[in-house]
């Protein structure tokens, strides 16, 4: 877990500059990784169905850095960032997208089913909200065994309209299991704006916690420090036995829903404004006052890392066709 300092003279905490620099590096790594994914998809190299989380990197990084390795996560269709932030090497993620046995799911999962149990990633889910109930059960297992671990579910604003979400949060709160429910509220469910999918004003989606009497913590999802501190608080709360937390983070999807989405449904000016003012990487770069020189050096390093992951993936092993039948049963 990252270093957190008490702010002198107050109960508030802040993240050390060194840690913020680490965060910056990881966020940029995720960004460059996903840009590469877009590029390789357009080049026709990547099979399947891909969703990038460009604009939402502060959440992946801020949340996962607040978790212990033993803590577990369940991710969504927009999974690359969470997976990298939870500790899977970009090589293994890229190899998965190329369908190679070296991939983090052995080539069986693909972009929407990134798993890495070793580092606590219980898998991404292509069914909206599909992973949330499992997180309640994982947290219950921790509680029953007296383990000091939390289980964390990521999901979007669109997911909060599902029955699965509702049943899961209700059960989690009822049993006070050590879970954190991370709502990545980017205001869109595919092409459907929040005004067409949730009767609550977009910034009030946190009110859904009230239906269960659940602790709500909110933070600016574009500010990695805020995300990180909020997650630490949420984790503490969940571990204290007081019950789970709904962690509501407002964020922005700065690209299409899926790679290749022409976004006909979206106001182009607004998107442009958002790209200019809400990019979490730009915001952090400004705050860290990174020199262009420093930035470019870092960026070059990261770009090379991402390039290397593509090389790694391409050099990977294709599964044998009949391997398809290998893991049906344990």
């Amino acid at each position, binding site marked *: 877990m990252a270093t957190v300092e008490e702010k002198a003279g107050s109960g508030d905490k802040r993240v050390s500059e060194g840690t913020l620099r680490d965060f910056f590096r990881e966020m940029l790594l995720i960004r460059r990784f996903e840009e590469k994914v877009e590029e390789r998809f357009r080049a026709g190299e990547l099979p399947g169905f891909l969703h990038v989380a460009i604009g939402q990197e502060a959440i992946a990084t801020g949340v996962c850095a607040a978790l212990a390795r033993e803590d577990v996560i369940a991710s969504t269709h927009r999974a690359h960032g969470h997976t990298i932030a939870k500790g899977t090497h970009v090589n293994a993620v890229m190899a998965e997208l190329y*369908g190679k046995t070296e991939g983090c799911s052995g080539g069986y999962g693909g972009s929407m*089913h990134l798993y890495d149990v070793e580092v606590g990633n219980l898998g991404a889910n292509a069914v909206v909200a599909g992973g949330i109930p499992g997180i309640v059960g994982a947290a219950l297992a921790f509680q029953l065994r007296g383990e000091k671990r939390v289980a964390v579910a990521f999901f979007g604003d669109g997911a909060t309209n599902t029955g699965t979400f509702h049943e899961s949060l209700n059960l989690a709160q009822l049993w006070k299991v050590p879970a954190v429910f991370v709502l990545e509220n980017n205001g869109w469910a595919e092409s459907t704006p929040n005004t067409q*999918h949730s009767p609550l004003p977009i910034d009030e989606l946190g009110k859904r916690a009230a239906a269960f009497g659940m602790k709500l913590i909110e933070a600016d999802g574009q500010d990695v420090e805020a995300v990180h501190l909020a997650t630490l608080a949420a984790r503490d709360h969940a571990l204290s036995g007081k019950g789970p937390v709904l962690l509501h983070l407002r964020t922005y999807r700065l690209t299409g829903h899926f790679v290749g989405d022409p976004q006909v449904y979206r106001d182009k000016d607004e998107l442009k404004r958002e790209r200019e003012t809400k990019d979490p990487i730009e915001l952090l770069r400004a705050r860290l006052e990174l020199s262009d020189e420093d930035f470019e050096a870092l960026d070059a390093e990261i770009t090379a890392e991402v390039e290397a992951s593509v090389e790694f993936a391409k050099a990977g092993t294709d599964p044998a066709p009949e391997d398809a039948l290998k893991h049906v049963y344990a």
Partner: protein
Amino acid sequence: MPELTYREAVRDALARALREDDGVFLMGEDIAEMGGSMAVTQGLLEEFGPQRIRNTPISEMAIVGSGIGAALQGMRPVVEIMYEDFLTLSMEQLVNQAAKHRTMSGGQLKVPLTVRTQGGAGWSPGAQHAQQLEAWFVHVPGLKVVFASTPEDVRGLLWSSIYDDNPVVFFEHRTLYPIKGEVPEELEPIPLGKARVHREGTDVTVVATGRLVHESLAAAEQAEADGISVEVVDPRTLLPLDEETIVESVKKTTRCVTAHEAVTRGGFGAELAAVIQHGAFDYLDAPIERVGSKFAPLPFAPVMEQHVVPHAADVLEAIKKTVARA
């Protein structure tokens, strides 16, 4: 005769029904501005407005359930479940409510609801975006089940489904959307419960649905080259099932292959085999061969995916196997 893609044919049936009948309206995720995740409903929002082309929250139970309620009030809702994998979330409403209201009410109610959905492999979607689950619904009295394989069929059958007074689960196949075919100038409704003989033949009958109709037709061509004459029948409506056409065909050819993309075990091919062995017992010269997906959740990597799902080659192999039987 105009040519339409399967996608356009679905859209054409929807648009015509929307035009003709105020009671018809559409609900589903991303069907409005975006025109649906498969671009099927593109343009409909512009023509019919947001009251009748309704984007919904991600709430598959409520989408189907509210469709049921509107149908009970005499509307003819057409709801879309984006991928049939997500029908798993609306099973309760479909199976316990839509299928049973009529019987439970002693015939007071009818449920003229159409649930459109699509699925199918062939594009590396992974295990949760490509299932073929039509067999489940064939087991549910009160539902009707349609699975169309050509532009002409999909248009005529969707029309009939919308105007049927019963709940219809209407399956489309993702990889068929771009295929083209001639359709009559005027939409001709195709009655539910009537199979289509796509190709006549004398040595073996292939009963196929969805994408496998096309694979089977390709296999039939190849078999022809080897001197095997193949009849290809598409039931089109899985429930109620046109047993007569199918059984008569097998009585004539004396051999049979069933073919669908769904997993073989417990699939619709099992029901077909059970019906055919019963109805054509004295005629059968070989066991009925079933072609379907191999027994595994669909893996992501293309080589594994292709290994799991059936192709023309698998149908051809099955054809040859039945014919090889003394």
